[in-house]
């Protein structure tokens, strides 16, 4: 048997977390070093998976399957393809840099890292899951530690409110998806949670059932797929921050401690988008085709509305929080366009935005730790004292504006290309509008880039340049070496991917090809 690398990745954080809990709480430095070691190990393994994936062969690789509850067709079934390999790597990166950034947490660091690592196990588990039950199992594991992390270590003013709001939103979403997943389990007739088999059954017509409802004298006859798709998709997309269920997200980002914000915006929101793709779109493709106009609308609102809201915020962290909503909208837009380019863009955007937003939140955290305020008008001149933070933030800003040469361009350009041509996409069989509507949507979506540029440039000018207010003189210090390492790693990845798109795009393409097959397009 091959080395079970995916299982090792999934369970490394969990085991490390449990071991950390056994170390006496006062030995904080040992705890930190141990956490960093575990995170580094997970990062190395995820790099191995990412670069070891054979693009020529495609399909699912590093597959592991063990029986879990055979009576009901539940198995532990893990594998990576072109869609989730980048996300596994992303989680490894964010986890490693998150530990670096959290070095200075002094209140119960043992529990902090343990909860953070349990969260990481949940995230890894969802990304590699090929079994629907396993996906839910790890999904809930990923959601819950957020509550404690935000409620205990968060920003005192809003943490209880934000933590509860976040938990309830995400639980509601996930249980609604759960009912849909159960309906798929029973309807597929396969008695298995194996998503590959369910997808096959769906292709073979197991889901071609017509419901008939009589509501207020009108008869509705949705098919199985049309009925369940919005529930399953939206249930997960809540975690992806889709409009109108996005507003837990900025509150959560702001209340969370820095490393948790990085995890939350960088990785957790991808979890929602990814699960919506994996369970919603890949298992119910006809449902996705039928609901595509509505998805486009919601995603478009996300993109444009999120950007405008970000522009009017005065709290540094809220700006980044809403920018996450806006950028996750681009992921949704790419998925909803049901076109090859859109899917590719969405896949790359998930990675690119994950790294970018982790960078943003890390920078915000460093500024806040020193200035003790996030009020943009009160800040200024930070570049003088923290040049590396300023440079890193500017790189992140260029990425978020989609500047060529940075990873954001590699991601956003295909998305807009996909949206522009979506009316003629071979798998988009229910396009209800005239042909010119698609380019119009692309143009409206692209406006957000202008708005993004506006708020990013505003922040850069107000926070990092200009004169430093007198109150900060003296006690703004340079960042620590570990902080710099984290920022440099994150920024380097963004530039590297922008300059060499071939590091990721061909990989994502192999994943997209199998998604396209499920939609009946080659």
């Amino acid at each position: 048997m091959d080395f079970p690398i995916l299982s090792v990745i999934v369970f490394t954080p969990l085991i490390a977390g449990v071991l950390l809990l056994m170390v006496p709480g006062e030995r904080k430095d040992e705890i930190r070093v141990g956490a960093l070691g575990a995170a580094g190990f997970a990062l190395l393994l995820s790099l191995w998976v990412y670069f070891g994936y054979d693009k020529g062969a495609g399909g699912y690789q590093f597959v592991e399957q063990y029986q879990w509850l055979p009576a009901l067709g539940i198995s532990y079934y893990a594998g990576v393809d072109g869609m989730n390999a980048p996300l596994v790597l992303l989680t490894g990166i964010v986890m490693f840099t998150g530990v670096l950034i959290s070095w200075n947490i002094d209140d119960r660091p043992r529990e902090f890292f343990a909860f953070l690592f349990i969260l990481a196990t949940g995230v890894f588990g969802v990304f590699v899951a090929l079994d629907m039950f396993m996906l839910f199992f790890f999904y809930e594991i990923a959601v819950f530690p957020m509550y404690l992390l935000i409620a205990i270590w968060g920003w005192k003013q809003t943490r209880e409110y934000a933590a509860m709001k976040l938990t309830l939103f995400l639980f509601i979403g996930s249980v609604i998806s759960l009912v849909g997943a159960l309906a798929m389990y029973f309807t597929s007739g396969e008695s298995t949670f194996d998503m590959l088999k369910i997808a096959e059954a769906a292709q073979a017509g197991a889901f071609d059932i017509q419901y008939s409802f009589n509501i207020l004298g009108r008869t509705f006859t949705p098919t199985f797929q049309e009925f369940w798709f919005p529930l399953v998709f939206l249930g997960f997309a809540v975690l992806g921050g889709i409009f109108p269920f996005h507003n837990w997200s900025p509150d959560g980002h702001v209340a969370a401690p820095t490393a948790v914000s990085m995890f939350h915006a960088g990785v957790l929101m991808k979890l929602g988008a990814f699960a919506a793709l994996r369970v919603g779109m890949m298992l119910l493709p006809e449902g996705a085709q039928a609901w595509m106009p509505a998805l486009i609308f919601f995603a478009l609102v996300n993109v444009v509305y999120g950007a405008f809201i970000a522009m009017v915020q005065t709290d540094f962290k809220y700006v980044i929080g809403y920018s996450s909503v806006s950028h996750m909208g681009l992921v949704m837009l790419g998925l909803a366009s049901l076109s090859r380019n859109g899917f590719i863009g969405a896949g790359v955007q998930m990675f690119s935005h994950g790294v970018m937003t982790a960078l943003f939140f890390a920078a915000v955290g460093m500024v806040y730790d020193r200035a003790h305020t996030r009020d943009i008008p009160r800040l200024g001149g930070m570049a003088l004292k923290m040049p590396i933070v300023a440079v890193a933030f500017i790189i992140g800003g260029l990425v978020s504006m989609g500047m060529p040469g940075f990873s954001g361009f590699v991601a956003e350009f295909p998305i807009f290309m996909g949206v522009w041509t979506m009316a003629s996409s071979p798998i988009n069989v229910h396009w209800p509008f005239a042909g010119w509507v698609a380019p119009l949507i692309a143009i409206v979506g692209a406006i957000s880039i202008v708005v993004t540029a506006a708020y990013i440039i505003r922040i850069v000018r107000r926070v990092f340049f200009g004169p430093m207010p007198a109150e900060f003189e003296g006690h703004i210090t340079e960042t620590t070496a570990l902080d710099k390492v984290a920022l440099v790693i994150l920024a380097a990845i963004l530039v590297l991917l922008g300059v060499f798109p071939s590091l990721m795009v061909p990989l994502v393409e192999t994943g997209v090809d199998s998604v396209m097959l499920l939609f009946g397009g080659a």
Partner: protein
Amino acid sequence: MILALLPEILLLVLAGLVLVLDMFWKDDRDRNLGWLTAGGALVILLVSWLAGRPGEEPIQIWGGMVRHDWLAFVFKSIAIFGMGVTALFSMDRPDLGKKGEYYILLVISTIGMALMAASADLIMLFLAIETTSIPLYVLAGFIKTDDRSTEAGFKYLLFGAMTSSVMLYGFSLLYGFAGTSDLYRLAQGLASGSLTGMPVIASALLVLVGFGFKVAVVPFHFWVPDVYEGSPTPVTGFLSTASKAAGFAVLVRVLLAAFPGSFGEGMDASLASVLAALAAVTMTLGNTIALAQSNIKRLLAYSSIAHAGYILMGVVAATELGITSAVFYLIAYLLTNLAAFGVVAIAGRVVGSDEIAAYAGMSRRSSGLSLVLLVAFLSLAGVPPLAGFIAKIWVFAAAVEADLVWLAFVGVLNAIIGVYYYLIVLKVVYLHRSDKEDQPVMVTRPERLALGILTFGILLIGTIFAPWWGFADAAAAALF
């Protein structure tokens, strides 16, 4: 035949042993009766599992009064386990732990539960229910110096007597319609009798009153909060798990054996729709009222009502998956709720209050106890990798399979309400500060042992499902 009654016989021996030793031991040794009861439970479980397991085919003994099948066996194990853990939690309560009669009542009540699970005849069933209930009335009112405990005992007695008599009336009607009191010939007798349809369903509903009282289903739940609050906390834990489980054992056996659906499968359709409505109302009411509670025992009381609703969902589905999921849920719930009430009992002993506000700073006073509370409450809320998660998934699945998608949606939305109030308690435990943080909470040895077993069990069931699912499935298969 001996083997079929092995657990009951051994329990009787245990009761006798406790009685005799209570007389001979001096008062200061009487605490050891708790070890005896708990150790006895362990021995009985081991011996029964080794020697008394039912075979493929069920056996009926005593002229069809008692049935030895997996359904009975699994529920007997649940009751005995509950008894053992409850004894451990009671040992260091000054008002319970050194009283021999307390342990005797506990054991006798457990005998009643074991017989409830095994009854295959209306008469035996009634006797078993009374054998269970009467000791429980006394246990609920055990602390004579505490008005609330006395009130709890009395209230429990009044409600119990009332619903028992209604149920007995239902039994007599059924006997009249069918000409037999044997549960397994009742269906046939009812079908061949001259009266079918409405009268039969009406008498079935009368019977449901009694069962509904035992499992705490709306509208027979009014006793629950007061009795749970007033009873000594270990007794409350026992009431909310073992007693509820025994009630469900009876419920599924009677409904599926005596009132099958038109094809001899599942359950009568009109009964099923009544129960579906009850399940929905029970969950919603239990969870909604739990939101407003400031006393942790009342909160758990309403949560226990809500959980009865979830379990009822599996029963309503009345498929093999449905019954299996209900049994599995009860196993998970047994461990979880015993742990929750165990923590409440310990905290109540030390803090002297059951108000949620009194739990402030608990995580700094005893991190271990808080961790158990965290595990138990998250399991109640249905968070993986704990037992409650998988249990909930399968009752929802059973509802979806039985085309009760609306009920599944009611269930999942209720689960969210549950998450909210369980988190509120955890928030107090982990976030709120108090000025007593420097006073540690002492957890005694038996309590530590019990909490350890329960926490380990919750994690084990939550991660490795297959063996427990196998037992639950065997129990359900006995009905199909």
